[in-house]
């Protein structure tokens, strides 16, 4: 059957024949499922590196004078600490929080959930992944080049990042590689976003109207729109920064700048320009990380509460509203950079208004749970954890949205605690929920439940133990990015709190071994998964586990109803899948 029939006349690629060679099948594959797993494994590698970097930072904060075997000179220098800050942030934001939920799960499940045989542009999809991979190689190479990794933070603030070696170790080759890596990442994400949008608009199965799409698809779709609009601007910023460093221009470097007693040969530029370009991308990036997690949380909560998502339409509109408002609030990252009070006021009001769609989502999650027959499987626990962390992290955002309060807190650990809870750990919980939920579909085997639950409780309690005390350190004036706060008089008495957080971080980090073991053990030895182990309703459960090359094995599904028809009164089963023909729906006896 040609795929023309099910897409209403738009021309799409006929599903490609399954390639036979190993390289075409697993390395340079055009199959969105293989590409999704490639993205996922890339993110898994990156997250392990990112966690190790954060543990090194936590270790250094508590024992700054310890001798480390792999550090030249034995003790970590302040610049090396800054390099850890930079690389941890860059790797986690770009190669984990952006790559896993969107590149990984979005790639794998968006086409299946809308009933498509593949993405709209399979070859472009392959190109996106390999350019992302190249970007990852560049950023890792920054560790080993002369001078080491850059020290200007994941935001790459100018003029520090624009001057070259004179401004510190890692600012030579390391910083150049950082810019090249981020620019490549932008390019890859642009192509990926374009592909996601075209796929969602063009390749939906008959009956899959926009208001019947699973909320996961809504999340990925709106995330792709954000990516399409945001990454192009960072790309422009990256080009200009690269020109500043290698062509001698001065877009971001003002006149009369003296660094290390040397007058810099630049004039005419403005560091604020970089901040505007960066944060015009950077704030939508926060939602690029969290929106897919919101979709997954809605999806999983509904499935395991055996209830329809409360207020489906409101949920879809709230995702759109968050995405829209996300483009108008970048200035709240720049309150302390000097800003007209009128601009600050506007950015502040717009920022707080994001609380409205966020609250709609939160209350609808609670409404979905209300009165449900809740099954506490591991994916459900992580989805509940997502809601908890999103609320805890989001509330502190209301404080930071006030310019007057932000002036006091901006350079402190309060901000670190805020964004780690709300976009870091919450998004990671979304990724974990997705992994436990879809593992059976992706690999055809079930993950181990008891191990999953142990993993959840360690991670959930651990995350709060690390990041809750961090708020208080911030309010007490604990300045972020300082390599050694114990040397600062008024901060020294906070060291015991740092110690507690570091111990919690090491325990939480170690608990991730439960996940890694569970993941790889279950790949090989997990019990075989059926087509629909969770009794769920969306199209990915209408096909084999794992799905065949063309996703549905030659037949193409039609969609007859919304995505979350659980516990319908009068129905024989407590779930009615989207693909079930009306005549096949069982009536209650």
């Amino acid at each position, binding site marked *: 059957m040609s795929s023309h029939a*099910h897409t209403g*006349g738009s021309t799409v690629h006929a599903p490609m024949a399954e390639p036979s060679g190993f390289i075409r099948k697993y390395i340079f594959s055009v199959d969105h499922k293989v590409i999704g797993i490639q993205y996922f494994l890339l993110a898994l590698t990156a997250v392990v590196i990112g966690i190790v970097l954060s543990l090194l930072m936590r270790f250094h904060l508590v024992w700054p004078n310890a001798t480390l075997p792999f550090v030249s000179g034995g003790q970590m220098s302040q610049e090396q600490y800054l390099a850890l800050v930079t690389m941890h942030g860059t790797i986690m934001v770009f190669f984990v929080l952006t790559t896993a939920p969107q590149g990984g799960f979005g790639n794998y499940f968006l086409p299946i959930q809308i009933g498509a045989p593949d993405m709209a542009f399979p070859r472009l999809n392959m190109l996106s992944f390999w350019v992302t991979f190249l970007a990852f190689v560049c950023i890792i190479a920054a560790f080993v080049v002369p001078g080491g990794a850059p020290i200007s933070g994941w935001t790459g603030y100018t003029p520090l990042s624009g001057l070259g070696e004179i401004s510190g170790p890692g600012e030579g080759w390391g910083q150049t590689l950082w810019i090249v890596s981020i620019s490549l990442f932008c390019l890859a994400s642009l192509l990926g976003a374009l592909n996601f949008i*075209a796929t969602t608009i063009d390749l939906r199965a008959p009956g899959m109207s926009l208001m019947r799409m699973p909320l996961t698809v809504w999340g990925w779709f709106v995330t792709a729109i954000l990516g399409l609009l945001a990454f192009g601007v960072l790309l422009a910023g990256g080009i200009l920064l690269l020109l500043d460093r290698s062509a001698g221009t001065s877009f971001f470097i003002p006149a009369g700048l003296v660094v290390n007693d040397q007058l810099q040969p630049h004039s005419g530029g403005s560091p604020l320009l970089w901040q505007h370009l960066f944060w015009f991308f950077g704030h939508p990036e926060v939602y690029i990380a969290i929106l897919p997690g919101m979709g997954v949380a809605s999806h999983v909560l509904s499935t395991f509460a055996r209830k329809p998502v409360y207020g489906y339409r409101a949920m879809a509109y709230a995702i759109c509203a968050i995405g829209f408002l996300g483009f108008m609030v970048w200035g709240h990252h720049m309150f302390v950079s000097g800003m007209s009070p009128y601009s600050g006021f506007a950015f502040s009001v717009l920022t707080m208004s994001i609380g409205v769609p966020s609250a709609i989502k939160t209350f609808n999650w609670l409404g979905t749970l209300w009165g449900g027959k809740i099954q506490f499987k591991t994916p459900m626990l992580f989805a509940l954890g997502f809601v908890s962390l999103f609320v805890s992290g989001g509330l502190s955002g209301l404080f930071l949205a006030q310019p007057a309060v932000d002036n006091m807190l901006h350079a402190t650990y309060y901000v670190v605690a805020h964004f780690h809870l709300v976009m870091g750990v919450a998004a990671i919980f979304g990724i974990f929920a997705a992994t436990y939920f879809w593992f059976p579909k992706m690999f055809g085997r079930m993950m181990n439940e008891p191990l999953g639950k142990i993993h959840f409780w360690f991670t959930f309690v651990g995350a709060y133990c690390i990041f809750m005390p961090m708020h208080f350190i911030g309010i007490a004036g604990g300045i972020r990015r300082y390599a050694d706060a114990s040397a600062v008089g008024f901060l020294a008495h906070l060291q015991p709190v740092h110690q507690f957080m570091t111990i919690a971080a090491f325990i939480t980090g170690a608990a991730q071994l439960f996940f890694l073991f569970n993941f790889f053990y279950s790949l090989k030895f997990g019990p075989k998964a059926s087509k629909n182990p969770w009794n769920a309703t969306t199209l990915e459960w209408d096909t084999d586990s794992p799905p065949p090359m063309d996703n549905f094995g030659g037949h193409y599904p039609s969609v007859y109803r919304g995505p979350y028809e659980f516990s319908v009164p009068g129905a024989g089963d407590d779930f009615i899948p989207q693909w079930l023909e009306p005549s096949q729906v069982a009536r209650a006896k």
Partner: protein
Amino acid sequence: MSDTEFEGIVASPWSGGASPFAINSKKLGMWLFIISDSLTFSALLISYAYVRLETPNWPRPFEIWPAIAKSSLMTFVLLSSSLTMVLGVNAAFNGDRKKTVRYLIATILCGIAFVAIHATEWVTLLGEGVTPWSNPFNPAAPLFGGTFFGLTGLHMLHVTIGVAYLAIIAWGFGKGKYTAEHVEVSGLYWHFVDLVWMFIFPMVYLLSVNPK
């Protein structure tokens, strides 16, 4: 729950008719690319405006002859290429392969002419001592060269890529490998590159005409 409500949930297929957004994926993909690329150009143009406003005495070195005359000619050439492109797309949808290829070749030649004239402009400016990092007209505004070469360079890159793209389309369409739809999509790209120039020409050239 009444029977009709039950039916409402279990059986309201959208009957599998034509998709409400039945637009060809390739065309949609090109539109999306244009959206993102226009944001990249917007960011660069806004950056240019930002540094220009921040700099007192931004140089305005372009004389009517030869710089403005040349850039006007370039604008004319590029606009003409959009006309030949439209005629090419039209011929393609009328199924006239020969005519289509001829119009595409005309478009390509206009593109090459644009790049060639532009290159002489660059050589002139470089000869006067304007570089990305220095500016003989006003040493306090070194970004004049950076913005000029950055903006026009990225645009020239787009034109060059467009010339190669159109050459492939012309070759493939002449051989019967590509459809009129392919020609139309390449036309979207070409018109977009043309449109970008309509922002760069006034902002970079006309705003910097020597006031004397």
